[in-house]
């Protein structure tokens, strides 16, 4: 296997290296790739959609259909992880509890554990005491991270970023919360059902906008036809349409990242985890 792999790799690599010699030079402004389609995008994006960030405009408008499926890919991954890993709640053998006033850890068998107690706090089986600094810093940071994420989503028209990056950052903030605190606390704030609903809802916002355009007007995802609803002219309607779908992307991406993290970090039990 090893030799076979090495031979394959060397063969493929040699072939690929050989064919690079015919490529246009790196940074060549006159390569076919830079001359055929991209000039149209660069020169007309502002006219067509009133969005200065060409990448966002192409992403959500010219190739908006691609991006809808890109979002769907994320949703698919979330569903796949859920389907593969998720284990319904089952009998637990034992759980660990921290007696907060004394710092003693206790192990309870079966369901003889204190359900609601002020002094006992449930901890993971391989728990290490929290580092106060990390804990505190994370709590402090999370708000700023989330506000920044919203900025990224909203400002995708004018600067790098957009729904996808913003969504990931939003999701990362919750993941950070889960890592710095514990998984159960995060799940309490942002439950699994919420994650599932949000991840479907995001794609639904995207595809629903598209379907709405189709029903009002002519083509799927043609935001022009949203102008009567939004009360703007047709070009601004595209800009707003892009914003709407970016929100959809952000919602899905955030929810799915969290959902996947929940499932991966707890191996599907969603009981205790990283």
């Amino acid at each position, binding site marked *: 296997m090893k030799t076979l792999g090495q031979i394959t790799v060397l063969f493929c690599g040699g072939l690929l290296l050989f064919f690079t010699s015919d490529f246009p030079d790196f940074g060549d402004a006159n390569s076919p790739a830079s001359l055929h389609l991209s000039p149209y995008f660069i020169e007309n994006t502002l006219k067509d959609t009133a969005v200065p960030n060409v990448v966002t405009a192409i992403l959500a408008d010219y190739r908006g259909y691609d991006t809808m499926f890109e979002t769907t890919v994320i949703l698919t991954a979330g569903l796949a992880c859920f389907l593969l890993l998720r284990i319904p709640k089952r009998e637990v053998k034992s759980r660990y509890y921290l007696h907060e006033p004394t710092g003693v850890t206790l192990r309870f068998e079966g369901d003889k554990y204190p359900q609601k107690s002020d002094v006992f706090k449930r901890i993971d089986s391989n728990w290490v005491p929290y580092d106060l600094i990390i804990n505190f810093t994370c709590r402090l940071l999370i708000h700023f991270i989330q506000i920044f994420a919203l900025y990224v989503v909203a400002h995708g028209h004018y600067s790098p970023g957009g729904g996808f990056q913003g969504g990931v950052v939003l999701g990362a903030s919750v993941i950070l919360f889960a890592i710095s605190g514990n998984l159960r606390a995060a799940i309490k704030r942002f439950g699994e059902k919420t994650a599932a*609903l949000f991840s479907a809802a995001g794609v639904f916002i995207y595809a629903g906008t598209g379907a709405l355009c189709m029903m009002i007007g002519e083509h799927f995802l043609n935001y022009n036809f949203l102008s009567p609803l939004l009360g703007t002219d047709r070009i601004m309607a595209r800009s707003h349409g892009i914003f709407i779908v970016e929100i959809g992307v952000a919602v899905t991406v955030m929810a799915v990242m969290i959902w996947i993290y929940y499932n991966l970090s707890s191996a599907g039990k969603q009981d205790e985890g990283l």
Partner: protein
Amino acid sequence: MTFFTTIFTFLPDLPAIIIITPLLASLLAAASGLFNRKTPFLIAAAALFISFISSIILIMQVVETGIVIEYRMAGWAAPMGIVYIIDHLSALILLVITSAAFLNFISNRKNIETEFRNKEGAFNSLYLLFTSGLIGMTATGDAFNLYVLMEIASLSGYALIGLGSNRSPLATLNYLFLGTIGATFYLLGVGYLYIATGSLNIADIASIIPTMMNSSIILFAFIICMAGLLIKMAIFPLHGWLPNAYSDCSNVSAGLIAPLTTKVTIYIMIRICLTLFSPEYTFNYLKISEFMVWLAIITIFFGSLSALAQKDYKRMLCYIIIAEVGYMVGGFFLGNRIGISGAILHIVNDAAMTLALFMAAGIFLWKTGEDSRDSLKGMFGKMPFTMAGFTLAALSVVGVPPTCGFFSKWYLISGGIAAGQYMFVAALIFSSLVNAVLFFRILEIAHFEPFKEHNHDHVYHHSHNTLLHHHQDHHDEHYETTKHNGVVKEAPLEMLIPFIAVSIMLVILGLYSGTIVANIIDFVIPAAII
């Protein structure tokens, strides 16, 4: 009246509806699955039905008018935006996909409920996503969009087959690695095409390629795209992932994925060779036909011989699928009109045959709880209608007239003779004979051996062990015990009727294959190919 008006308003949007409906329904199914166990099935079935009807209307439209339907996504014209192209070929494949997905789905309601307890929402949603991925792959006119949809189909496919027997996660992981290599190679090929032509639209690239026939970038783009697709379609040296992945998974998923994945990949190959690169480039300039046909011949021999060695029914089917891939790839690369007609016709026929065989596997498993060949003992007396359908499917795979397998094989063989590829002809005949032996062994067991008592206590291994405790409580109510020897006890009607419909389709497809070829496939093949 209003109903029809509504329908007609949506008519121009059908190419979008056919894919958007399963997509939206998958979202609804996923969401409603959180609250209710029954609704996801209804939503999914309705969506698949709408897709199915849309594909029928589309193919009728295309055949009647003869005009290629172009649909602009987001309203942007071809090279800038993404367009959907519904021509004769894609309309035909769309019909195959939607009908197979629909029939397999409705026949497996009970299987889904038992095998994916409490996860029906996610399962049905992924089923729909897989279907819409395939639909999109078929209809899209954009090379990169094809990649995205291919990934949707692959990812949902991994999830669908990842749940099954104990071995399926490993098999699926291997499938995932190879699938990713294949898809990434394809993406790389698209990148090479982009660097050479600056475009992503298939028609646009096709119009540019003739001006740069000798470019080595184009050549390498072709090689690497084909390499990616060949991995995904499991041709001989790259087939390793398929048997494990398809045989260890649950029957519902197998019934969806096995008939469609390889066929759609072959469709993509045909599309790339004929539409993206011109037939001129593929057949005359490159001169790879000979090599590909030999690859196909080896695949056929290998698939048939390996199938002979299998004891497990589903594994045997998997190797037959590999052999059939050889049929289609070989037929296509014969490079003459009749061979390509045969390859395309065989895509349709093979999808139907494989669907029927896997549906039969689902019914047998449902009745007996076992996968092995011996579990079929005495089935002729027990389930005469199922066995009749199964026999039809088997005959079709063998290639006995008047089932459809014969007719596509006829085209392939005459194409082989016309191209002078006598080894290919020999491989086809050899594989037919091997298939005859394979299915005869099964039918013989079902016909001669007395019926065996099945006990379900240990067998139903499809429940992954983590859900096992849930299953066992419900075993008895869901798996009918088959103890009344000698009494006809058929599968439930909801499983039987779609299955019989598919089996009868096998004969109808066969008898109307002339019509299919004359009205659809003839328009697909460029006039340059004789």
